[in-house]
Every structure is written in structure tokens, then in C-alpha cells.
């Protein structure tokens, strides 16, 4: 199976190494200028990636490219970018993708597949097969231009396609890559359990001064997630569970998901205890500024559409709304309008039953 990985960040590099270790035919491809300069060129020069961490240590030869035409020869096009990178590749690659291929967003956010599919359909008229996970399967960081360290590989993630009538077909193709995937009902079930959306925004808002003053020089989870901050995340998770209940979307508590993935040894209490007992997150520092993916991605592409789904489900979300408003205000970015709105997902004036029909059969 030929897999083209679109993207060149830590997640894309971790996926390239992992998939090659498992014998897949992989090419790492990015046409995005900053990626080419900072990532693809050095990896090309080195002929591959050094890796360390839970997958072992070594050097892995990796094929690379800066030409999107590579996607034509792929069985699976795996997109491993920040959430706003989806848009870029949807616009760039739509005309190159055939309806026999599978686009795999690894991970999706809320409505990522819907929007990718909408962009391709609007530009080319094609109805592609697209699917997503609820989280990147790796906790990884680039510790040098060609060295990826993998701290953790997931044990349990959700998977679904959009529309979900393609679930069986897509799942049969993707499951061999990641055997730990569990098939979800639809992409709302995957998106609503994206842990980054639940975890990141509250910590950013409630440590804003500390982050700005020290440029993130403290342990984000271990020190920054005090009982008060964790209570806000607990309340956020409660609202998310209420949305899922009202929308009849199967889900689980955040702490249960965290425990299931072995990110924590204590999932029996609240978020505070789960984070205190999280070995993979122990040494992770806070971001150096507020203009970071914990905000740009997790608020703009996560929290904003999640609260919007809440409105469709007629569930009150004061914690989510307050975080969106305060984070928008402190960063002077209007995430309410600049993020992934219902309008951008073509879901304006859609009620729950219409939403479920769209998730199953598409537009």
C-alpha cells in the first residue's frame, strides 16, 4: 500500500517513521514553503529521519517530495498537519485526487472531513472518500531538523469517515495501518472526543500572564494545571458530555479516554488527578506565546465548532463560550467568526436530524 503523508511537522515525521517500521510504502510530501525550507530539504539531504523514544532508536530512510502530484499514485493520502493545513491541501490537491482513493485526516478536528470534502466538491465536483481519527496517534517533538522523538503512541483512538456510509470501506483500508482504531458512528463522534480541544484552551486562558511574562518557561501540565484550572476543564467536559447526550453521540469522559490511552495512571477522579499522574506530559513546557496551536488550532478549529454543535443540540455551553470570548479578546483574533463556523461547514440552519442525515449520507 502506497501512503503519501502530506505535512512535515513532528506528527508527520513520527507517522513516516512508524509506518515504515511497519513495512508500508511511505513518502513524506509538503509543498508548503516554510515546510520545504525547514523540514523537507534537511530530511532530503540526510536521506531520512533519526528517531528515538518509544519506537526505539535509529535512522530511517524516508522518501520525500515537494510536489503534490505525488498524491496521484497513492492508495491513501494521509494529511498530518495543523487543522488549518487541511484547507491548504484540500484546495491544492482536490483536482489530483480520484474518487477511488482515500483521504485520511490524521487527526481530524470537529468537522474537518466535512469541510475538506466540501472544498474539493466545490472546486471539482468530486465526492471523495475521506476519514479521520479523533487525535494524532503520537506525542512527538522534533528535537533537531531531522530527529523526531516519539514519547507515546496511542492505544485507543476513534475513526470514522464522512459520510459514514463509507465507514466499512475506509476502515478496512486504514485499520491495517493503525490496528488500535475503533470504528465510530460518524465524524461527530470522533470530533467530539478530540482531547486537545478539551484540554488546551482552559490552560492557555488561565495561565495567559504566566505564559506571556516567562515566554512559557514552566511545566504546562505539571505546574500550570492547578486545581482551579482543572475545575474549568472538568466543567468544559461536562458541557461536552451534555452536547453528546442531546445529540445522541456516543462518547466517554475525557479522563476515561486519557486513562484508556495510558496517558495517565489515574482516570478515576477529575482532570487534576489525571494530569498529576500523566507521565508523558510531565516535562512538557508551556508554549512560548499565546499565538500557538493550543489556541489557533484548538480554539479556532475545535472549540468554536464544538460550541456551534452545542447550539444545534440546544445545549448551554457557558464555559466554552467564556473561553472563546476571553481568548479571542486577549489575542485580538475573532475566533467566533474566523474559526471553523457552521457557515464554513455548510451547516447553517441545520437541525439535529438533518445533521445526522448529512453525517450519514453527505450533502
Amino acid at each position, binding site marked *: 500500500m502506497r501512503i503519501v503523508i502530506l505535512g512535515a511537522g513532528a506528527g508527520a515525521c513520527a507517522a513516516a517513521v512508524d509506518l515504515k517500521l511497519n513495512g508500508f510504502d511511505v513518502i513524506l510530501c509538503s509543498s508548503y514553503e516554510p515546510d520545504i525550507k525547514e523540514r523537507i530539504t534537511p530530511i532530503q539531504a540526510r536521506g531520512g529521519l533519526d528517531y528515538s523514544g518509544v519506537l526505539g532508536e535509529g535512522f530511517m530512510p524516508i522518501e520525500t517530495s515537494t510536489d503534490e502530484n505525488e498524491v496521484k499514485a497513492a492508495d491513501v493520502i494521509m494529511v498530518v498537519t495543523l487543522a488549518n493545513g487541511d484547507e491548504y491541501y484540500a484546495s491544492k490537491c482536490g483536482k489530483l485526487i480520484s474518487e477511488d482513493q482515500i483521504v485520511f485526516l490524521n487527526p481530524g478536528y470537529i468537522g474537518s472531513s466535512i469541510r475538506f470534502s466540501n472544498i474539493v466538491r466545490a472546486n471539482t465536483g468530486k465526492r471523495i472518500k475521506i476519514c479521520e481519527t479523533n487525535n494524532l496517534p503520537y506525542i512527538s517533538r522534533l528535537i533537531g531538523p531531522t530527529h523526531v522523538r516519539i514519547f507515546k503512541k496511542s492505544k485507543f483512538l476513534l475513526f470514522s469517515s464522512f459520510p459514514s456510509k463509507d465507514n466499512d470501506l475506509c476502515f478496512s483500508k486504514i485499520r491495517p495501518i493503525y490496528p488500535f482504531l475503533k470504528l465510530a458512528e460518524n465524524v461527530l463522534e470522533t470530533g467530539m472526543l478530540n482531547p486537545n480541544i478539551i484540554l488546551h484552551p482552559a*490552560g492557555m*486562558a*488561565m*495561565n*495567559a*500572564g*504566566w505564559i*506571556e*511574562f516567562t515566554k512559557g518557561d*514552566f511545566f504546562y501540565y505539571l*505546574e*500550570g*494545571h*492547578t*486545581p*482551579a*484550572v482543572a*475545575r*474549568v476543564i472538568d*466543567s468544559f467536559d461536562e458541557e461536552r458530555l451534555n452536547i453528546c447526550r442531546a445529540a445522541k453521540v456516543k462518547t466517554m469522559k475525557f479522563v476515561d479516554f486519557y486513562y484508556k490511552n495510558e496517558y495517565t495512571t489515574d482516570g478515576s477522579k477529575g482532570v487534576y488527578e489525571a494530569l498529576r499522574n500523566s507521565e508523558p506530559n510531565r516535562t512538557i513546557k508551556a508554549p512560548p506565546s*499565546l499565538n500557538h496551536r493550543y489556541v489557533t488550532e484548538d480554539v479556532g478549529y475545535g472549540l468554536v465548532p464544538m460550541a456551534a454543535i452545542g447550539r444545534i443540540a440546544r445545549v448551554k455551553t*457557558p*464555559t466554552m*463560550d*467564556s*473561553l472563546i*470570548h*476571553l481568548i479571542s*479578546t*486577549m*489575542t*485580538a483574533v475573532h475566533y467566533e467568526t474566523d474559526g471553523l463556523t457552521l457557515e464554513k461547514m455548510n451547516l447553517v440552519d441545520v437541525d439535529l436530524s438533518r445533521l445526522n442525515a448529512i453525517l450519514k449520507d453527505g450533502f
Partner: protein
Amino acid sequence: MKITVIGAGNGAFASAADLADRGHKVTMFNRTQSKLDTVRRSGGISLTFNNETRFVKPINVSSSPKEAITDADAIVVAVPTTAHAYVADRIGKCLSDGQLVLLNPGHTLGGLEFRNRLRRNSIKKKIKLCETMTLTYITRLRGAGAVQIFRKSKNIRISALPSVDNSSIFDTAKEIFPNLVLARNVLETGLDNINAICHPPGTIMNAGWIEHTRGNFKFYKDGITPGIGKITEAIDQERQAIMRSFAIKPISFVELFHSVGSTTLRKGSVYSAMKASEANKTIKAPASLDSRYILEDVGYGLVPMVELSKIAGVGAPTMESLVNLSSIMNGVNYWKEGRTAKKLGINGMKKADLLKLVGTGK
């Protein structure tokens, strides 16, 4: 003048010492009497002001509200605003016609809550009730029976409730605190409550830092970063919109901060005004989130401001977001525990009703 000062914290000690120093006949009274033991024993307060320390006396201490209130010309209430209702209940029946009751400070609408308690308790005495927008001193207690006044703040706004009494209280109020200027009404003093504008963003958006270090950083100098300054500015915009809706000409937080002498900058960003604040530069963050920066400034500051925004018919989404998050982080519902429209006796009122109430008392 015979003045009774109620309270035993920074503000009460500073008021009592300063008033006695300026020749008034001062009596102190407090709920927890032991906090005044040293004054009772020594008959005065050690006052440090302008690099000079001296013992100010006589200062009388009373343990009975009747004795403390009956003969006083004026009563200065210098307690946390969370205690205004308690004080009204405790001293209400001892008040007599014509007495001046000055809340220093009223915080946001302390006077309205005080008045509402008196009415609920069927106290019909014609007192002259008034409130300042913030404490008239920058001050801290310095051990038992001692207080330091760093600065007597300038341009502190005061208004009577109702404001039709403004001209009749102002001369007396200035005898007590010379640095006062008249506000249009208590909506202006309440909405000029500087603490409610600058404390909640700095506390809530630094919640992790405060809890992890027990407040071991400089709250204004280091903790009010550009991002937090923007939140403060957003609340300030909302506050000004409420004032405009009530036909009060607002001045910005930075101008207010400058007018009371807290910063050298007259305009510019909140962030730069804080950086330029000599008076505040060494002040540490509160040691926990269960501090007056939240209890008073959210519960008795932002909550009544949001209530006013609803009557004014203007939005206050930033204030509401801060009340929501502080309620969750502290596990206390400030929308209920705080100074609600109901506690103020103004729930369901239209804008015209409220303006009439603060203007004429009817």
C-alpha cells in the same frame, strides 16, 4: 465633627487615624471586637504617613452599636463591601434623622444594597447616604494598632443616594475627606470602581500562576501582560458603554487610574499604564484565588455591573465570561452569591426607573 468609623481593616484604621489626626472626635466599632483591642487599650493608633510615624489620639472604641451610632454626626463605613448588608442590619435601628452615612468605599452599588436592607428592615430614618468609588487611601495595616498611609488618593468621586442630596452632603463629606469630587450619581461611582476593572482579569487569567506559586509574583508589574491588558480594556469598553447608556460621560480606566494618582500615564494601553505605576510596582499577587480580588471584585463588582448592563440594554460579554470562569474555578456561583439585582432591590427595573431611583430615591 463626631465621627464613628466602622470596620477594622486597612481602610478603617487609615480613616480613623487620619480623621483623629485632623481634629475630629473619632469612635471605632467593629463586628469582631478583638480586632480593636489594641486601640481600646492604648487609646489611639500609630500612623505612618509621609515618612513620619506618630501616635494619634484620642480614638475611642465602642462595643455597642447604639453607643457608637447615636451621637455621631457622621458614620464612615470602611468594611469589605461583602459586609455592607451586615452593617446595615446591625446599625440600622440606631440611626437617626440627618446623620451622614458615608461608605468608603461603596464599591459597586454598596449604597443601594445598604438602602435596600434598611427598607427591608422597615427602617425609615431620613439619613444622608453616600458612597465613594474607591477607598480614599492607599494604605496597609502595620502590625497591631498601626497603619501606614502611602498616599491619600486624589479626585475620589462621591455621590449621595439619591443624588438630589448631593449638594447637601458634599461640604460635610469634604470635611471628612478633603480630596473628594462630586459624581453625577451612584451609578457613576459604582461604575468607576477601579478594582473591579483591573483585579479580575489579572487574577483569573493568572489562576495557575497564583495557585502554583501562592501569589509569589508582582501582580501589576509582571502579571498584567499585553494579553491580560486587552481583557481589561474590553471590560473597560463595556463599562463605558453602560455609563453612556445612563447618560454619564465616562472616562477611561487609564484616565481614572491616572486621576487617582496611580500611574504617570494619562492615556495609552492598560499594559503600559500598569508598567508605569510606581505605586503598584511592588504589590504581589493574592496568595490564593479565594481572595477579595475575586470575592469582592467579581461578586460585588462585575456581577452588579452586568446587572446594570442588562438594565442599560448593552452587552457585557467579557464581564460575563470572567464571572463564569471565576465561578467555576472557585466552585462558587457568583451569579447567586454576589450582589445581584435582587439584593439591590432593582430587579426587573427599566432604565428610567433606575435613573429615577438613584436621582430622587423614589
